[in-house]
């Protein structure tokens, strides 16, 4: 490798002018927003009880208070370990997570006998478990902030993480169906009543690996090219990695029977590739490959069947869910009917019948929420997600090193893509696939993995917002000066 890797990690190569940074810590803003979010969660719990029980029980506030304590704890950790992190991330995620816990508790109450509703135990049911998972997820997020004091450390373990990621993705595919399949999608490891979705954690590992790999390869990927139709296309041999990931995605699609995850991995990779190389051609190649692969899988499903049949069926159901409203199309139909019943304003928290939608606590939670909070409420949720994603991308833009940029950009975009895939599926925009709704769906894997992503984004935004000290302060004068040494350190380890 002729190009020195060290400058690749330096801001000088990206051509970015050093920004004027706000060195002010904005933790108080975070605290204020967090308190506001917790007030909303508490109000939601009260409204649910008022609607469902015709009275608010004296201890309605306990789950909301527990959630609040967990997030306030996380806030304190951030105060010490990432004081310059983005102040909007945690409150936005906490609001989604807290309302998710409240909604799951509301589902539990609806499923319980009318007599037991008023004193439904706090730690029982999906809502109770989600509360525990939230605590665990927050601890893991705090743990990541404690262990990873500088996000660049992650690049030292990039190859390990890449291997771990691929293994995590492949485990459900190679496991027998009874240890890995739920609702036709092989995305799980099912052991003795526990279910883990390894793919959720794989995202973080794979993005780290991609980011590292592409920081190293970006020059050759972006420079060596052939021009065709006015667009620079890469050389054939440089296509290797993208083809490999494409095949991996197709394998996921075929053997794990899941379009959403395949789309997620592939979209994630293509976007990181594009950000790294600044080449539109990668986006075009990526889109062509994905739609080509999907079309191929669809036509194979129609003609050959076998492992492709599931994908073909899902597309058929998507095209006309009402063709088979009681069997194959039951879930999407009930989902659409729930959303439609909610209309603009919704039936009010606790006022709808979200349990009419199967799996409302999991894949279809957005439809269940939509019935009760309406288009306005769901739009607010979309805005919250958008805020999280754009803040993540902003951390990528603001951070100085290339690895951080790719990591933050990749993680934030993946999060956004996942929301798109599941919400689009639930609302009939795209074929339905088994994805969790980040921070909402019941389930520990998804919650923990996504909180780890948020922790990583916090870490990167902290690095971006941290006032320059010591040698870094010299950066303003000479762009290509001292940072070389600073940023070169981690990559040297791997080169050896």
């Amino acid at each position, binding site marked *: 490798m002729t190009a020195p890797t060290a400058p690749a990690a330096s801001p000088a190569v990206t051509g970015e002018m050093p920004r004027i940074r706000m060195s002010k810590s904005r933790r108080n803003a975070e605290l204020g927003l967090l308190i506001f979010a917790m007030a909303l969660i508490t109000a939601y719990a009260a409204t649910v009880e008022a609607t469902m029980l015709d009275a608010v029980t004296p201890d309605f506030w306990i789950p909301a208070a527990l959630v609040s304590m967990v997030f306030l704890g996380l806030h304190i950790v951030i105060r010490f370990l990432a004081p310059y992190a983005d102040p909007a991330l945690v409150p936005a995620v906490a609001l989604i997570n807290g309302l998710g816990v409240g909604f799951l508790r509301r589902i539990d109450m609806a499923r319980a006998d009318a007599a037991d509703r008023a004193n439904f135990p706090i730690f029982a049911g999906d809502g109770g478990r989600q509360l525990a998972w939230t605590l665990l997820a927050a601890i893991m997020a705090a743990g990541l902030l404690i262990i990873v004091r500088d996000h660049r450390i992650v690049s030292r373990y990039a190859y390990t993480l890449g291997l771990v990621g691929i293994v995590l993705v492949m485990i459900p595919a190679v496991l027998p169906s009874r240890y890995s399949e739920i609702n036709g999608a092989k995305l799980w490891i099912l052991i003795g009543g526990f279910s883990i979705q390894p793919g959720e954690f794989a995202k973080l590992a794979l993005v780290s690996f991609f980011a590292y790999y592409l920081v190293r390869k970006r020059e050759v990927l972006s420079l060596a090219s052939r021009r065709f139709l006015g667009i620079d296309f890469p050389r054939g041999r440089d296509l290797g990695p993208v083809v490999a990931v494409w095949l991996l995605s197709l394998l996921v699609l075929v053997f794990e029977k899941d379009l959403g995850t395949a789309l997620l991995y592939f979209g994630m990779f293509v976007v990181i590739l594009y950000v790294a190389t600044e080449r539109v051609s990668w986006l075009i190649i990526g889109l062509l490959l994905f739609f080509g692969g999907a079309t191929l899988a669809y036509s194979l499903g129609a003609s050959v069947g076998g492992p492709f049949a599931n994908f073909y069926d899902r597309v058929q159901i998507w095209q006309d869910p009402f063709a088979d409203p009681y069997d194959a199309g039951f879930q999407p139909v009930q989902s659409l009917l729930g959303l439609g019943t909610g209309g603009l304003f919704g039936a009010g928290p606790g006022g709808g019948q979200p349990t009419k939608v199967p799996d409302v606590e999991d894949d279809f939670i957005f439809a269940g929420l939509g019935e009760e909070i309406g*288009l306005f409420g*769901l739009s607010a949720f979309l805005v919250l997600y958008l805020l999280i994603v754009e803040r993540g991308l902003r951390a990528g833009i603001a951070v100085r090193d290339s690895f951080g940029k790719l990591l933050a950009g990749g993680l934030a975009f993946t999060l956004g893509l996942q929301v798109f895939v599941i919400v689009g599926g639930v609302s009939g925009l795209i074929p339905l696939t088994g994805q969790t709704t980040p921070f909402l769906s019941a389930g520990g894997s998804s919650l923990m993995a996504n909180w780890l992503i948020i922790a990583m984004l916090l870490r990167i935004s902290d690095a971006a917002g941290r006032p320059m000290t010591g040698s870094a302060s010299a950066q303003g004068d000479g762009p290509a000066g001292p940072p070389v040494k600073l940023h070169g350190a981690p990559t040297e380890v791997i080169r050896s």
Partner: protein
Amino acid sequence: MNGPLRRAGVVVMILFGLLFANLNWVQGYKADEYRNSDFNARVQVAEYERARGVIEVGGRALAESKLTTGELKYLRTYPFKSQFAHVLGYKPVNLAATGIEKAENEFLAGTSDRLFGDRFRDMFTGEETAGGNVVLSLSLRAQDAAIKGLAGNDVDSTRGAAVAINPKTGAVQAFASMPSFDPNPLVSHDTNAAEAAYNQLEKAKDGPLKNRVVGEVLPPGSTFKVIDAAAALESGITPQTNIPAGPTYTAPTSGTPIRNAAASICPESQVTLAEALRESCNTGFAQLAVELGAAKIKEKARAFGFEDESLTVGNLDGSGLPVAASRTGTIQNPDGGDDPAALAQSGIGQNNVRMTPLQGAMIAATVANGGERMRPYLVQQLLGPDRRTISTASPKKINNPISATVAGQLQDMMVSVVEGGTGRNARINGYTVGGKTGTAQDGNDPNDHGWFIGFVLKDGEPISAVCVLLERGAAGGSAEAAKIGGDIMEAVIADGGGN
């Protein structure tokens, strides 16, 4: 790298924009469709959360909701069982609703815009808004007389219909279809049982689910002669004008000869128009129709309401039970030329002429009301959950098919039918009753349909107009129909009707 990162941000915004647009489509544009979808069980449960309003007559509930302990909170019950089935219809859990239950569903369910104020207020009081109440224009006694009369007919007819309306307003006073059915099993919360009950009724002999007052059309026979007479009077003929009659008549071109019901009826070559109607002279009216021409007969029938495909009977401000269009048929050769044979047959209510009993009652009502045809209605009042009046029917005139003069002449002619002609059975002491009987052949069945349309006046003021139909009865069906018609009108009078 920042350029691509920003563009990735734009991509995410576009993706979220697509989600937002799609949610608008699903929750905004398609919301009503999804909300009211047959596959949507939510609205159903929600609908049964609040007490559906009462359908009532004279303070008696014909349909009410009773509290249960099941998942669906309220059970619809019909205390009068089969007696009002064809008016009320039914509101089942899974099957399609019918009748007033369907037409006034939004109001009864409490979701109507007219009840917005109540729902708004209940948002603060926290009470579950009950539905609105519907008061029908029916007379309990008249309905009773109609059902008993039909059921107790002495010509062994098992199918039929009777309807009475107030000629001045169009308010329906009685509305009965035979055979009837008990709607209670259909609204059972056990949807399998409800479906089984429905399937059984669907297959039952004589089709009890059929609404024979407004849903079925049959040849009207001689009752159609009132239309001929109206057309004739409008074109300058008077009740005393002699018209050609005779024992038989064969139309100029072809066709089987038309005879009278008995040799004693108008054997003379000419009778007056009044005489022809009183005796129900077939040969006279067949020739009259041919002389007037198909266009005039059809035009007059249309003015009386034939061919109207959009009429509903229910709420004057909204929807109601759909009324099947009565028809005269084309009365033409296939090439579009005149067909005197068909016209002669049509003139005596045969050939392709078809009529609903409600249409028959509207003809009699229009004559009784001085030529003003009122739009029939069933819903007298809508009351809020707190029983305050939300709306009261304000009678609507449809048109004047005949002038007041012609109406007066027709009244006199029809009164003579009841006083000295074929409709004697309908007489009521102390009141002026007019009418016209009809015996309609239908296909090759030897049993004819017996019809009676008529009205009752007190001091020239109309009180009620009826139509009674007995399908496929033994001989004398129209005389029996006249008797039932008289009984129904008497019941209306006894109930204080017309005041």
